[in-house]
């Protein structure tokens, strides 16, 4: 296949992934909508062996055998929609992967698919989906499906509309094995922090609103379970982020720019993110900060993370990180001379 063919394939795969993600979102929303009807919600919950039976029985008695059948049918439908949604998400994720592969193979010479903001966002959202698919069973994340899929769909759309760039070779400074390690770990941590952040946001929402007993959100786990799942995801992401930002990043920066730490805006924000998450881990161990405040810190951390990922490029022009400006990295350094 020619480079142009790979590039075309990549673009088509992104489009396909976007469409399938969107379908998955619709399916999951339909799933939620089915839960919204109280009867269905209760019987679905009962089917999941979670609800305290009493309500379900009351309904069954009130509506008679036919009503009970209808509720069962709806529970079946909810389960079916849930499975369909996960399947669609998996298909979209595969297409997403193909899109990344295509970007890498379209370049001459072939390279890792994260040379600019577009590709970086493509990789980041891919990892969010992948992380979700890997973890949803283990951590019981099914309830967050619409949030994850919605987030990925929206971010992909932003990437395609505003960040798109044609395939071009890596700038010289980016052409380093450390880049591969650095970015892979940064992207993995970003994906995990995003999942953890969604858990913490849900914690805050639930903390404010109180328990739901009906409706789509009834299946959101208890506060304690949310807090614990969030901690586990963050505890995984934090060392990975440490590795990306404080080990491989500086090693690469030292080779490319002669300073391992230069207080470049991207570095500063990566550091801020790191410090905020360190504060989150502390908060979880501090009386009075546990729970709500810790979750707040996790959300602040997520905000700094994504701000650094996308936002900082629009606030600061001095970043040497060349996703901001693809050609700047090997431009002659003119500044410092009188």
């Amino acid at each position, binding site marked *: 296949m020619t480079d142009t063919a790979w590039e075309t394939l990549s673009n088509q795969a992104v489009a396909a992934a976007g469409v399938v993600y969107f379908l998955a979102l619709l399916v999951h929303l339909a799933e939620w909508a089915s839960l919204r009807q109280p009867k269905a919600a209760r019987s679905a919950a009962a089917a999941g062996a979670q609800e305290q039976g009493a309500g379900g029985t009351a309904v069954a008695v009130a509506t008679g055998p036919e009503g009970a059948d209808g509720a069962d049918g709806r529970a079946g439908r909810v389960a079916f929609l849930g499975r369909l949604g996960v399947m669609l998400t998996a298909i979209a994720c595969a297409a997403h992967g193909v899109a990344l592969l295509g970007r890498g193979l379209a370049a001459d010479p072939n390279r890792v698919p994260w040379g600019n903001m577009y590709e970086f966002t493509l990789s980041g959202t891919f990892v969010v989906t992948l992380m979700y698919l890997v973890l949803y069973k283990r951590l019981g994340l099914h309830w967050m499906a619409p949030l994850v899929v919605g987030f990925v769909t929206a971010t992909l759309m932003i990437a395609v509309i505003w960040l798109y760039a044609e395939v071009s070779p890596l700038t010289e400074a980016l052409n380093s094995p450390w880049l591969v390690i650095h970015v892979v770990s940064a992207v993995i941590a970003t994906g995990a922090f995003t999942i953890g952040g969604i858990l913490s946001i849900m914690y805050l929402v639930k903390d404010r609103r109180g328990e739901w007993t009906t409706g789509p959100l009834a299946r959101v*786990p208890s506060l304690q379970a949310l807090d614990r799942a969030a901690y586990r995801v963050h505890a995984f992401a934090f060392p990975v982020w440490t590795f990306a930002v404080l080990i491989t990043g500086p090693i690469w920066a030292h080779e*490319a*720019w002669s300073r391992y730490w230069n207080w470049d805006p991207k570095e500063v924000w990566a550091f801020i993110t790191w*410090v905020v998450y360190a504060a989150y881990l502390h908060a979880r161990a501090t009386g009075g900060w546990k729970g709500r405040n810790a979750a707040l*810190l996790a959300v602040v951390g997520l905000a700094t993370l994504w701000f650094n990922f996308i936002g*900082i490029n629009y606030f600061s022009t001095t970043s040497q990180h060349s996703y901001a400006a*693809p050609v700047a990295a090997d*431009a002659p*350094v003119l500044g410092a001379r009188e």
Partner: protein
Amino acid sequence: MSATDTRPSAPAPSGEPPRRAGELGLRELGRWTWRQLTSMRTALVLLLLLALAAVPGSVIPQSGVDALAVSRWKDEHPTLAPVYERLDLFSVYDSVWFSAIYILLMISLVGCILPRTAAYARAVRAQPPAAPRRLDRLPGHRAVRLEGVEPEAALEHAAAVLRRRRYRLRSSDQRGEAVSAERGYLREVGNLLFHVSLLVVLAGFAVGVLFGYQGAVIVVKGTTFSNTVSSYDDLDPGSRFTPAQLDPFTMTVDDFDVTWLTKGSSAGTAREFVADVSYDLDGETRTYPLRVNHPLTIGDTDVFLVGHGYAPVITVRDGEGNVAYSGPTVFLPQDQTFLSFGVVKAGSARPQQIGLDGLFFPTFSLVDGDPVTVWPDDLDPLVSMTLWTGDLGLDSGVAQSVYALDTSNATQVMRADGEQPFRLDLRPGETVQLPDDLGSVTFEDVQPWVRVQVSQTPGKFVALGGVIAALIGLLGSLFIRSRRVWVRARPDGAGATMVDVGVLERAGGGDVEDVLDALVADLTELAGPSSSSPSTATSDSTTSPSESGKDPA
């Protein structure tokens, strides 16, 4: 192991006479301050402050990062600039207030590490604590009925099981009717290692900032750079830098190659810069292909390739026919097209000094008689300069930039029509006679130049070792599960033995159910599969929250 309960709280001032409010002794004040400073809450607040304090440096240009951007910013904001200046906002990361925060954090850190290390040392020597009276009050609890097993035998077996699982046991003479076991001591070691390593990283970083330096210099192909303070175009030394620490080497740029992309969306950008250099240290000469991402290390010094450009070789003959200036002249690229600006100062030209300033076009094309740049590679170069005579200020004793012409006392030579400045456009090998018998200018050919960054960063391996140790400690601290297990056995009155198992997960988000499952399975193997009845009494408290919260689907 939540910090709030493991940290030894300072002893209450018991036995001291009560005081009236406000009558705090100096010692108490000190102790109070220390306790505040080293509390977990303070650490938390200081961390948040540190994050907050780092923000301005990412939006306001920093002189340590980009001095030019700072002066440009100051020009654009004349009223704000002095205020920002006073607040150190152009050098946030060296500022007093930023330093204050991280120094406080470090003090707090030391104040945290020391007592925790002491507490840890005690904990390692201490026995796992005796079993609480009621194991069923613990977050993880199971009761098992073992038939045909004496309580003593059940406890022996439990001890063996726990020892096999690498728990530490409370010694048997203090056991009583229960087994106490603990594991995961290394978690705290990991935590301490992590926090100590942070100090190591900071130390390594500080050494680099204080004793290191960064210099930059442009070296034209074929010329030699010798590593002395005066050879640098600019030098950014740490406050404890001494010139004696410069490695005494010389380095010659023998050749420089760039590959230009000729097709695709990034056509016209450069790839694969290679400067073949030879360097000389202690009488030994070696060569190295210097490339981006592949720095050269000479002694303690690292040399990096960071930029490149063109130096037209220009010869100026004065009105008396003598060579007043000759050599490669560094022109500075203005943008990605490598359109470059430079000046020539022929101070010894007679009867008048001659100055030239103008542009270099690597590959040019004429549009309405004026050159424009069409390609960054020097395929068809042109220099286009205007001419100045008179006093160029070279003898005034004031240091001058080699990239700017002081024209305050000079006059620009105009064309014969008097309207337009006289302009000389030269291609390689061409010579132009200057008007008014001033002399002539020859554009001989073009040499490439490279800009190298030269630096010493002492302490970099200390810092690297520090972060790696910190990461290892962090992994231990986050993933080693630390817990206590108690097993109690008593006759149930009907010929069997009731075994109670209690688990206390001491940190992290560990699930106790899987631990209990495994332990109970091991404990009941003694009685054989038929006689045991595991999980007879699974009280409400043993259902883990995450279980009950699991998604129904």
